[in-house]
Structures are given as structure tokens and as C-alpha cells.
């Protein structure tokens, strides 16, 4: 579904991504791992064309993403649940969700999606009128995920969903993620620092080191590999 081929990205004159290539096939959950500063966020920004790539290509079902404007990606069924949630802090939960469906024109469709999403997250239904900025960390993450689901996306990118959350909340969220993917027939690219959690839930993984892919393979293999265990799991 998503094909990233040899992309190079820069911030000004500083190169961050070096010939980065990765692939996500339909209905897979693929994880992109790497410590801070290795280029994960830059990769996301490049995929969504918020940071234009200097060379290489990014294709989604044959369509060149790097030639599209960021606001056109939602129309293709691609959603990002951003790092740090990036909710609209002064707007209510409901308004945030409605914004998530901005690219949909038919009111009925939006209503249906809203019902589905609130069904997945009953906590949000309770707090529909609450101002998003006042939600707890876990609720905000739920809201961000719910907002991303409002277009019933074909392809979802989760950027560090576990960041700053209590372990029990993280577990809940990852469980819900699995349900969503099954119910919605989606494909997922997961960016995570929590290696164990990410590899447990994924089919395949890539390891990003200093802007290029150092390792890749089936998730189980990576989990069992010595390098991963030493570098990321402290074993």
C-alpha cells in the first residue's frame, strides 16, 4: 500500500534521512522503531509532505504522495495520529471529532462515523462536550485516535501513541488499536519507542538508526534478535 523509496530529507542544510526505504502492505501492522533523534518524526513529516523530500518517492496505491499537498491526504483515506496528540485544545471533544471528518461532505456519513467512533470509546461519549485541553493524557490520546478514525481510514499512522502515558492506559489503547484494525480493515504504520509493545502487536518492523534503516524483518524475529535485545530491551 505504502511504498517509501530512497527518500532523502533535510532541515535546511542538515540531512536527516539517508535513502530511506520501507514498505507497508495491505492489512499489515508495520512498526518503525528507533530512539529519539534517529529520524522517525522526520520520516512522518516527509510521508505527509509537511517536510518535502529532496529526492526519492513516496507512493500510496500507485499515487505519488510527495506530489500532493498535506491537506489532500485525508481524501485518500490516510490519517495520522500525531505525536503529542495535537488536539485542538480550545474546542470540545465533539468538535475535534467533527474536524476529523472535515474531508467528508455528506452529513449522514459523518453522523454514522461519529456514532461508530463514540461506540469504540465510551469514555469520549461521556465527555463529548468537554474542552479537549482539559482531558487527561489517556483521554486525549483516545480523542486523537478517535479523531483520526472519523474518516474510516484505509491507512493509519500512529506516531508514538504510548508517549507520556501510564502503562495501564497504554495497554488499553493498544488493545483498542487491534480491534479497530480488524473492524475497519485498515493498514497501520506504527512509530514507537516502546519496542516490546510495538513488536508484540506488529507483523513486521524496521529499525531506524541515524536516518537510515539498520534492520528489518518479521516482528517476532526482531523481538528475538540479539541486537534488538541488547540495544533496546536492555538485556
Amino acid at each position: 500500500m505504502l511504498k517509501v523509496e530512497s527518500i532523502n530529507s533535510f532541515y535546511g542544510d542538515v540531512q536527516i534521512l539517508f535513502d530511506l526505504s520501507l514498505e507497508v502492505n495491505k492489512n499489515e501492522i508495520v512498526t518503525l522503531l528507533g530512539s529519539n533523534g534517529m529520524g522517525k518524526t522526520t520520516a512522518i513529516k516527509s510521508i505527509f509532505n509537511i517536510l518535502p523530500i529532496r529526492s526519492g518517492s513516496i507512493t500510496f496505491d500507485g499515487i505519488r504522495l510527495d506530489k500532493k499537498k498535506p491537506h489532500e491526504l485525508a481524501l485518500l483515506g490516510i490519517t495520522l495520529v500525531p505525536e503529542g496528540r495535537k488536539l485542538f485544545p480550545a474546542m470540545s471533544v465533539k468538535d475535534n471529532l467533527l474536524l476529523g471528518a472535515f474531508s467528508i461532505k455528506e452529513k449522514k456519513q459523518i453522523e454514522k462515523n461519529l456514532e461508530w467512533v463514540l461506540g469504540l470509546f465510551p469514555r469520549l461519549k461521556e465527555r463529548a462536550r468537554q474542552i479537549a485541553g482539559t482531558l487527561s493524557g489517556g483521554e486525549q490520546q483516545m480523542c486523537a485516535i478517535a479523531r483520526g478514525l472519523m474518516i474510516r481510514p484505509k491507512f493509519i499512522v500512529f506516531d508514538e501513541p504510548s508517549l507520556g502515558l501510564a502503562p495501564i492506559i497504554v495497554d488499553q489503547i493498544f488493545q483498542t488499536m487491534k480491534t479497530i484494525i480488524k473492524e475497519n480493515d485498515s493498514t497501520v504504520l506504527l512509530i514507537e519507542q516502546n519496542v516490546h509493545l510495538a513488536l508484540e502487536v506488529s507483523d513486521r518492523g524496521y529499525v531506524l538508526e541515524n536516518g537510515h534503516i539498520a534492520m528489518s524483518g518479521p516482528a517476532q524475529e526482531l523481538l528475538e534478535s540479539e541486537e534488538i535485545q541488547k540495544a533496546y530491551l536492555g538485556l
Partner: protein
Amino acid sequence: MEQIISGVVLGCSYALVGVGLSMIWGILKMININHGELYMSGAYFMWVSFTMGMPLVVAAIIGLVCTLLLSALIQTATIRPLFKKPGWNSSPFILTMALSILMQNVALRVFGEKFQNIPYFDDGIYKIFGNINISGQRIYIVVVTVLVVALLMVIIRFTRLGRAIRATAQERDAARLMGVNTARIYLVTYVISGVLAAIAGILLAPIYSVNPWMGSAVQIKGLVVCVLAGLGSIEGAIGAGIILGLAESLSVTFIDSTWKDIVSYLILVVILWVKPNGLFMKKGEA
């Protein structure tokens, strides 16, 4: 009592200009120094149409539409390209200052320095609240302001466009990810603000006369209103506008009218001292 009414009328024009300025500040994150000149444009376009023989109402509408187009032109041709260049965030201030000087001088060149008159929309004098006299023009000002502001509030709170505007102001990148064309939102916001300024200019032209410098004082008061309200607070700008108008008007009863403007600036200083986030901002909001 007459002073209070004067104050409310004055406050309406401050509110219209302040709301527009506040919108540009809150959404485009820039200070629009040529806002006073958009106010002036509304008045001049109306005056030109009127002198060409159009009925007053038609002339007013022409004034509005022309300023709308002018705002769109300014935003697309000068402001948008500037935003695309990295590191130019402080430049819209200088750009709009340059535009302000340009527009004032163009007006001076084309129309001359003479103060031009426009007749009142309504020549009648009405009695309200018993036996207080108020001119029809002033009633127009208040009624139109209330209607326009109410319409704006409805749009911002309850429509898809309004949500998109709020989202762009609060988290621009996330808004883009949801499919909001933020470049278009910037244009729409700037144009709405320009139209608000033009409405104020058209409403007040019969009272204060049309001249190339009519925008300057309004610009400064508009900025005061914005800061008083709390930067980016649109509802606050309405309240702050009325308060400022009332304060100025009432102060005339106690102080010489030449000190009127100083009252506004004094209020600004005191409020900033006591409530630096503005009168209407909740704690912790930026």
C-alpha cells in the same frame, strides 16, 4: 445618558475594527498595520460610487465589495508569498506598515487632502428611552454592528468553515492533516476582517468625513481593543470595543475632550498592568 449612547456607538466601530484585527492576529498570527486603510477603502469606494450618482445603499455595497476584492488581492499578492519564505515571521508587521503608507498616499494622490462628505443614511432624529435624541445614523451603526457580529459568531461557532478557522488558529498542522486547506482559510479570514473594517468605515463616514488619514486613529484604537481583549479573542474584542468606546465617551464629561485619546491609552496601560492576558482571556490561555 447621551454620553453613554455616544460611547456605545463609538464602541461599535471599535468593536468591528477590533474583531477583524483580532481574527487576523489569532488565525494568521500577524499584526495587520494597514487595517485602518481597509476601513478607509470602504469609505472611499462608497464615496466614489456615490459621487458617480449611485444611491447611497448601492454605493455602500460597492464600497464593501471593492474592499473585499482589495483585501483578497493584498493577501494573495503580498502576505501569502511572504509566509512561504522561512524566517520571515516578523515581517508581516513591516509589510503591512508599508502597505498602510502606500494606501494612504495613493488616496492622497487620487482624492486629494480635502475632507469629503457623505450624507447620513437617515436624516431623522429619533427619541429613545423617553426623551433622549439620537440620530438615525447612530441607530444604523448599532443595529448593523449587532447583526454583523452576531452573524460572525454563528459562523465561527456553528459552521464547518468556522470550525476549520478555529482549528487552523489552534493547531495548524493538525488541521491540514484533517483536510483543511489552511492557505484558503488564511485568505478567507483576511477577507472577512477587511470586510468588517469596511463596514465600520462605511457606517462612520457620514459622521467623521472621508479623508486619507481616517484610518490611522482607528488602527491604533483597534490595536488597543485587541490587546485589551486578549490577543486572538474574538468575543473579547467585541466587549473590549464597547468598553473602550464607553470609557472614551464618558471621560469627556470629566476631562477636556482633547485628552480623550489619552484615556484610551491609560486604560490600556492599567489593564496590562493588572491583567496582562487581557480582560477576557481565561487564565493560562495564550
